[in-house]
């Protein structure tokens, strides 16, 4: 393919046919993150099989024990096995993430589509409401909702889901707006396909990528918020294992056993990091 540029008349083919932009390679970090995430998910499903001990069993004879063969990560103030609690804690975390993202998706899809396909007025109203919600620091609004509904994992994570919804709705709307006029939507519409069918059949596949990436980063934030609320004592109720609550209780005996705060901290960090880095990998993979 010899291209003659008008100004010079010289063939522009300096490089032999530049390659089409391939999907970017996925780096090492997302792969590591994926493995960690997989392990955590398996722990969620198979907690009873994996944990060496019952996370709720009190053993007042071995309180605040260091790592040993019986308790790989030691025991807490009540003599409960720390490792088992961390493994069971994945359930609180991922249940929380599931609730939050579920609420987000259920709210955001109609919200974003209505804003994108609806007229200017509907768009304006829905986006302003979104702005209003987005103005709140997520933790503060979540605490506000928990304060009214009462502390519980479900309450707090439903609140988090509501707070997340406008950011996803905004993405969907952004994906819909250019599509609204795009040819294939016009063609579909002229063939008598209803608005909703157009939305689900044609708009979704196009908007899916960015939404998926966003859901990963929200999932990571949800994990941190679940831990933070638990840490403040506003998340799961007392004996249920949760990384945030366990971190808070480990801090109460920091002077006696400083490194007890390390395990829940590390697992929270790894959990949040793995989800967000897998999201990055998905973004790179989608190009």
């Amino acid at each position, binding site marked *: 393919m010899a291209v003659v540029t008008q100004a010079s008349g010289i063939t522009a083919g300096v490089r032999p046919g530049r390659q089409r932009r391939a999907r970017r390679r996925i780096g090492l970090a997302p792969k590591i993150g994926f493995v960690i995430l997989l392990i955590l998910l398996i722990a969620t499903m198979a907690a009873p099989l994996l944990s060496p001990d019952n996370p709720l069993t009190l053993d007042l004879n071995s309180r605040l024990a260091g790592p040993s063969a019986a308790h790989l990560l030691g025991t807490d103030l009540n003599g409960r096995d720390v490792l088992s609690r961390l493994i069971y804690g994945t359930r609180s975390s991922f249940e929380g993430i599931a609730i939050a993202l579920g609420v987000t998706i259920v709210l955001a899809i109609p919200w974003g589509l209505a804003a994108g396909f609806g007229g200017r007025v509907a768009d304006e109203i829905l986006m*302003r*409401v979104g*702005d*209003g*919600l987005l*103005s*709140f*620091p*997520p*933790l*503060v*609004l979540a*605490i*506000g*909702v*928990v*304060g*009214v*509904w009462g*502390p519980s994992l479900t309450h707090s994570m439903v609140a988090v889901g509501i707070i997340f919804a406008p950011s996803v709705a905004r993405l969907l709307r952004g994906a819909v707006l250019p599509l609204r006029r795009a040819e294939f939507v016009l063609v579909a519409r002229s063939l008598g396909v209803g608005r909703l069918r157009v939305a689900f059949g044609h708009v979704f596949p196009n908007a899916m990528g960015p939404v998926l990436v966003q859901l990963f980063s929200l999932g990571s934030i949800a994990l*941190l918020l679940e*831990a*933070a609320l638990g*840490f*403040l*004592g*506003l998340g799961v109720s007392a004996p249920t294992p949760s990384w*945030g609550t366990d*971190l808070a209780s*480990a*801090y109460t005996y*920091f*002077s006696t056993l*400083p490194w007890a*705060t390390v395990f*829940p*901290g590390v697992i*929270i*960090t790894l959990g*949040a*990091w793995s989800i*967000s880095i897998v999201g990055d990998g998905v973004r790179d993979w989608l190009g």
Partner: protein
Amino acid sequence: MIRLVGRRLVTSVITILTTSIVVFALRFVLPGGPVEDILGQSSGVVTQVQVDALKQRLGLDRSPVEQYWIWAKGVLHGDLGQSYYSSEPVTRILGQALVPSIELIIGALLVCVVIGGGLGMFAAIKRDKRSGRIVLALTGLGLSIPDFWFATIAAGVFGLSLGIFPAVGYNTISADGWASNIYSIILPVFVLSMVTASFLARHLYNSLVETLDRPYVRTAWATGLAPRTVYLRWALRAAVAPVLTFIPLAVAALISGTVLVENVFNIPGAGTQIVQSVLHQDYNVLQAVVLGSGVIVAVLNLGTDLITATIDPRVRAHG
């Protein structure tokens, strides 16, 4: 330019109105409501007559729209109601609680701009060197460590174990003087700033690296400007404009962060207040803190948009 400002003002007012409605609506998602709580605490048996009487006294018998109107008017007049728990006016409680919180947030912002800005610039200028890459990796680490865990470790190590800084408590300026006040918040401020500083550093790094590759930066080198001038006077200005949108995000993150940090360090600020208000079911205080945080972020968003418009002629021309 004036149209841009006008448009932004209108949308901000709408946003703030929405935040207030959101906050107010929190009340109505509650099945029982404060009435039952208040009566339930004082006596065992609650009659419908008692409930109705109290509802009327609190204005809860009116329609939600009316109630909102009365509440919003009160808020605009600086009346946020009374604490159900201590019967003090909410404004007084907040007035006291806000001092340490604002101090923490402003302190953290300053530290964040100095450290985060410095690290971001360093990483961008040294991007081809190992030192630059190490700094960049450190900021990545800073972003992924949860601030409440970092807070416990900092408080534990420097406060409880080493005893260099207080692990808990807050010394007020009026009672203990400036030095003691600052001494008591050094650790929390440092902890609080870590996440936002890392965030700012990465933001500024990306923006600056992109700017340094621009033809106009080559112009600067080609005209013989000194590196300091090129980085600070020539490139930074262009790189900072996109970073400005960071401020409201940072403040929102700092507000969330201060809730956690105040609770770890036991500082009597708005962050401990909001958690207390949940435990005491003190809805008016809770509502006020939530509303305040939303309004602050909305106002900051407006402010940065306007500043961006004045700094960056590209926005000004096309806004």
